[in-house]
């Protein structure tokens, strides 16, 4: 096992972790501010990917496709918030789960109705494709590096937004005491729509960016959604910092486990059995990580409340 391979896999893990962060940040923000569990977040990821694939197919421009993904997901998020989600803020969690489950059914089958069951393809633009040479002689796909860069900038942007801007102050105040900030004259229902649309736009962006290296198809959002849940359970619900660290941990565990566990088992098992046991255990690795964090800290690494 060479160093180059290890570094490549760490970069892969970082890249998938950072994309998970875009999903988890929106989820955790929506939960932190509105106290809502949103299963349909994966559908917004899918909406972003389909919008990007459709626009890229029509115009050939990847940048326009990204803009379309952001706009379509934010718009879908805002509409869903105003029509359905708004009625659920005071409802029990069971109702939130069911209503957002219903939204998944509507989104998934609706998309299948419009686009058909076959996957769409979104190509990496030529100026971002191909490998790049990193220091130490490592060849690494440029696009994946760009994903890491975009994700990191979004993370910094989110930090700036919540810590340094007026709307960020309102968001943080909304997490702590919604009656008080409503009394201070902030339009709370507008704030909720904005937060929901922001979370949706992040999910849509992730969907479009990842859609270019995987296929764009119905149901693509749910596996990512469930991993994002694992991320925010690990990081602590409501904490963007927790979502970031949790996402990187999950991304690295998932990627490195898939590569190294089979290798590890080869040390004391025959090859076939080692590959099978290793890959079966690797598929469980992130959930084991989650259980360990839970035993240690039931509210997650940075969670303040249960």
């Amino acid at each position, binding site marked *: 096992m060479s160093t180059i391979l290890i570094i490549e896999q760490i970069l892969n893990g970082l890249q998938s972790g950072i994309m998970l962060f875009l999903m988890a940040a929106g989820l955790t923000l929506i939960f932190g501010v509105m106290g809502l*569990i949103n299963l349909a977040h994966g559908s917004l990821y899918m909406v972003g990917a389909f919008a990007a694939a459709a626009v890229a197919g029509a115009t050939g421009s990847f940048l326009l496709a990204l803009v379309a993904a952001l706009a379509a997901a934010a718009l879908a998020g805002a509409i869903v918030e105003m029509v*359905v989600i708004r009625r659920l803020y005071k*409802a029990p969690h069971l109702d939130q789960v069911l209503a957002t489950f*219903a*939204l998944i059914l509507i989104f998934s*089958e609706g998309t299948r109705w419009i686009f058909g069951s076959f996957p769409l393809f979104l190509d990496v633009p030529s100026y971002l494709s191909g490998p790049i040479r990193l220091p130490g002689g490592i060849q690494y796909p440029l696009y994946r590096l760009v994903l890491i860069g975009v994700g990191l900038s979004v993370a910094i942007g989110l930090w700036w937004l919540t810590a340094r801007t007026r709307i960020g102050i309102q968001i943080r105040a909304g997490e702590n005491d919604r009656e008080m900030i409503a009394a201070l004259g902030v339009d709370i229902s507008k704030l909720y729509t904005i937060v929901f649309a922001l979370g949706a736009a992040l999910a849509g962006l992730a969907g479009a960016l990842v859609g270019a290296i995987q296929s764009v198809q119905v149901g693509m959002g749910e*596996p990512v959604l469930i991993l994002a849940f694992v991320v925010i359970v690990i990081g602590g619900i409501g904490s963007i910092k927790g979502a970031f660290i949790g996402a990187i941990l999950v991304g690295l565990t998932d990627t490195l486990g898939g590569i190294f566990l089979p290798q590890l088992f080869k040390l004391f098992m025959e090859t076939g059995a080692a590959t099978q046991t290793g890959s079966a255990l690797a*598929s469980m690795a992130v959930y084991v990580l989650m259980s360990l964090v839970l035993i240690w800290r039931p509210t997650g690494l940075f969670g303040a409340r249960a």
Partner: protein
Amino acid sequence: MIRESYINWIVLAGFLVVPLWALSADEPFTITLATRAVLLALAAVGLNIALGIGGLVSLGHAAFFGLGGYAMGILAHHAQTFTPLELGMFTIAGTKSMPIIWLTAIIVSALAAFVIGLLSLRTTGVYFIMITLAFGQMFFFFSISWSAYGGEDGLSIYVRNGFPGLNTLVPIQFFGLCFTALCAALFVHWKLRKSPFGLALNAARQSPARVETVGLNPVRLKLLAFVISGAITGLAGALFADLNRFVSPTMFSWQLSGELIVLIIIGGVGRLMGPVIGAALFVTLEHFLGAFTDFWHVWLGVILLLIVLFARGGVVGILTGKAGPHV
């Protein structure tokens, strides 16, 4: 407005009349559909013990459904290939006998429910929902990557397993078996709710602090409910796999966990017959809307959304005119 107990008996009678009619009209497919509804109902009755009485919103009950299915699949697979099942120190033979398979399914899913419950009940609320969902997904991915038992392709069983004194290949006899299991589970639910344990569990849902003050441990109550619930859903999984003579990772899928909750909500949360009514409606809708359009899930989604937003008590709530034992 109709009394709930009347509705319960009417629904139960309906479940007997439809297959008997199908038998006389020689429509074996209808009997199979009814069996499917009975087994989905059985799985949801299991979930209803955790969800309805204990207030535990588990979005991972497909884990137990799938474990029951694989308990059947693995035992029958070893029996039909005449290979012994190696379990470290023990070696046991596969079996095609339903009672043994059911017992295995119940024990395995109860054990899994104990471990998952122990970990998940350290938390409450949204955390609990997400963690149970994640554990369900863990089983899903494990079953996909464990290629010894078919991996993604699943396991097929050539002949349905046997029950002493019955020919399970005859649809109506297998239906009778499943229906008896459903009645037994309903009886357990009914007895449980009236028992001191059920009353304490109900109290633990409403106010854990007060339950603790009178000297009971709310987490232990909920854990026991979760284990009983998982065991019943596991039994349903074993029977469901036998109905299809096929088990695959889709039995572990999170959509199934979601659908089990949907069944309970359509019927009415915390109602004895809620899951049964929900399952009957679900299978009927699936059959008729499914024949009418490929996209019947859109309509299911719309119906579900309307029930959650405007009809909190589900079908039983609408018929009895009461929102439900609890909201």
